[in-house]
């Protein structure tokens, strides 16, 4: 299999594991998990410096997941990358005394850099990590922050966007999962974010806009970002995505923001994913 097809397959596996876990828990967030599967596949299998056998490896890159409700996709990619068994995650997700909390918890799950869930914290935390790592001599670390689009309505993000630019965090890349839906409906109807690229530009960021489901486009933009050196400008990648991506009856349906698929729905979904 060529590398692009292989990553596409990995993304489908992430989707399958995420849906199985949500269905088994009868609770969770499928829509925003499915929309980031390709982004996570590309990051974990080829871009990020990380080591599943040594999750706290000092030289690793840092990925801060601000949209902590996308935990099913995060656990799925970490399982596929060898951090823990997929079965443990699927069987215990959202159950009492499980490591696999509804929103990601760094103290419980190896590979999770920071516990999030309350929206709007991740970019500020990523700024802090980027500032802290930059203080180390010859620091080559890259810091990534994955945000939802809806969460940009939290004012704290704009404080962080201002600060990243002020502190010239060239080692920081933010990724916006621009799926255009949030719990109550369309982002542009609920609280409009556009013109989003122009807002970031006005705050001093370098902006790239791509198709967040195009593996090659993701590889290109992340490779470019990981090679960035001696730059003072933070980078934001606006990844245009589809909420519920990959499952015909979930795509662009706001209902699937936080609804778990029933048994028949799961079976149909898994057959569509071909995993």
């Amino acid at each position, binding site marked *: 299999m060529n590398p692009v097809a292989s990553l596409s397959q990995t993304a489908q596996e992430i989707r399958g594991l995420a849906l199985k876990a949500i269905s088994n828990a009868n609770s969770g967030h499928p829509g925003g998990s499915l929309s980031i599967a390709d982004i996570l596949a590309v990051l974990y299998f080829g871009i990020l410096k990380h080591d599943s056998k040594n999750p706290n490896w000092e030289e690793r890159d*840092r990925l*801060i997941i601000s949209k902590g409700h996308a935990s099913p996709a995060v656990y799925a990619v970490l399982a596929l990358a060898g951090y823990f068994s997929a079965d443990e995650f699927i069987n215990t997700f959202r159950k009492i005394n499980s490591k696999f909390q509804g929103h990601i918890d*760094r*103290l419980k799950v190896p590979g999770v*850099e*920071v*516990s*999030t*869930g*309350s929206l709007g*914290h991740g970019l*500020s*935390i*990523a*700024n*802090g*990590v*980027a*500032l*802290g*790592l930059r*203080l180390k001599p010859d620091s080559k670390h890259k810091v990534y922050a994955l945000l939802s689009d809806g969460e940009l309505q939290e*004012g*704290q993000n704009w*404080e*962080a966007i*201002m*600060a990243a630019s*002020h*502190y010239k965090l060239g080692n920081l890349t933010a990724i916006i999962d621009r799926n255009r839906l949030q719990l109550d409906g369309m982002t542009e109807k609920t609280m409009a974010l556009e013109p989003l690229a122009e807002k970031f530009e006005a705050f001093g960021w370098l902006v790239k806009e791509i198709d967040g489901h195009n593996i090659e486009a993701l590889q290109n933009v992340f490779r470019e970002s990981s090679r960035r050196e001696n730059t003072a400008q933070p980078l934001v990648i606006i990844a245009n995505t589809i909420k519920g991506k990959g499952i015909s009856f979930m795509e662009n349906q706001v209902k699937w923001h936080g609804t778990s698929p029933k048994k028949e729905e799961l079976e149909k979904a898994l057959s569509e994913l071909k995993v």
Partner: protein
Amino acid sequence: MSEKIATRQAYGEQLLELGAEHEELVVLDADLSGSTGTAKFAKAYPERFFNMGIAEQNMISTAAGLALAGRIPFASSFAMFAAGRAWEQVRNSVAHNELNVKIAATHAGITLGEDGASHQIIEDIAIMSVIPKMSVLVPADAVETKAIIKAAFIHKGPVYIRLGRPAVPVIFDTKNFKYEWGKAQIVKEGKDITIIALGIMLHKALEAAEELAKENISAEIINLSSVKPLDKETILKSIEKTGAVVVAEEHNKVNGVNGLIGALIGQNINKFIPQESVAIEDRFGQSGSLDDLLDEYGLNTKNIIEKTKLALKRKS
């Protein structure tokens, strides 16, 4: 007790001292470095100081990120904003992640003075101590502040340190002062009543004890600078001995230290213990001079004396 130094000033001096020895120490402020005391550090170590502008929520979460990157951050602002505005960031970014962030919040309580109610936080001890994993410390003077800043730096985990604006009497002697993490400190021994005081109320309690001694009332004074962890053993031992207690705090009486002590007594002591409170009676502050505010809100030596006598009357 003649010399007066603000606890925020002592904080700034201690930061400077720690900064010289420890590369991992970083400091954040939100446009108040000239007031919180962090400006000295900022000048000496500009590469390790981050002014985050008037954006406290971002400051606290950024501090969390710095801790994740192996730094030991002290984040400062007025307590109203560090504890109040950024409460949810303290709770979720810092405490829930069990991160090694120190929040040194100044201008707490009504003694902030003329700026008035919008800036006078009388709720911070309550809202910080309800957060799991959080330590809450309230130094009584400049000497204890320096010891607490050093101890907080060494302690692994989130710490909230409540500091004040006005210059307050120096109670302790640098040479003989020993700070022990999590311990309540018996500053003066006595047998008739226990007065538990924290922050600026400690020197008032000591003054009250001197006055009370003239009337043959022997008060034991406890400095409760560690609200969390709470040193149950020292507190209960003293109250069991004296049989009465007054709690003096520059904080709302609702959900303040008074309630913590009441619960402790109820769950541990089988006999009746009269308890009185010197605190702010569930109302907002206002503009005014330090002395006028302490009078208006009943936070003076005479209020402690009055409540002590009331408790003793109920005891007999």
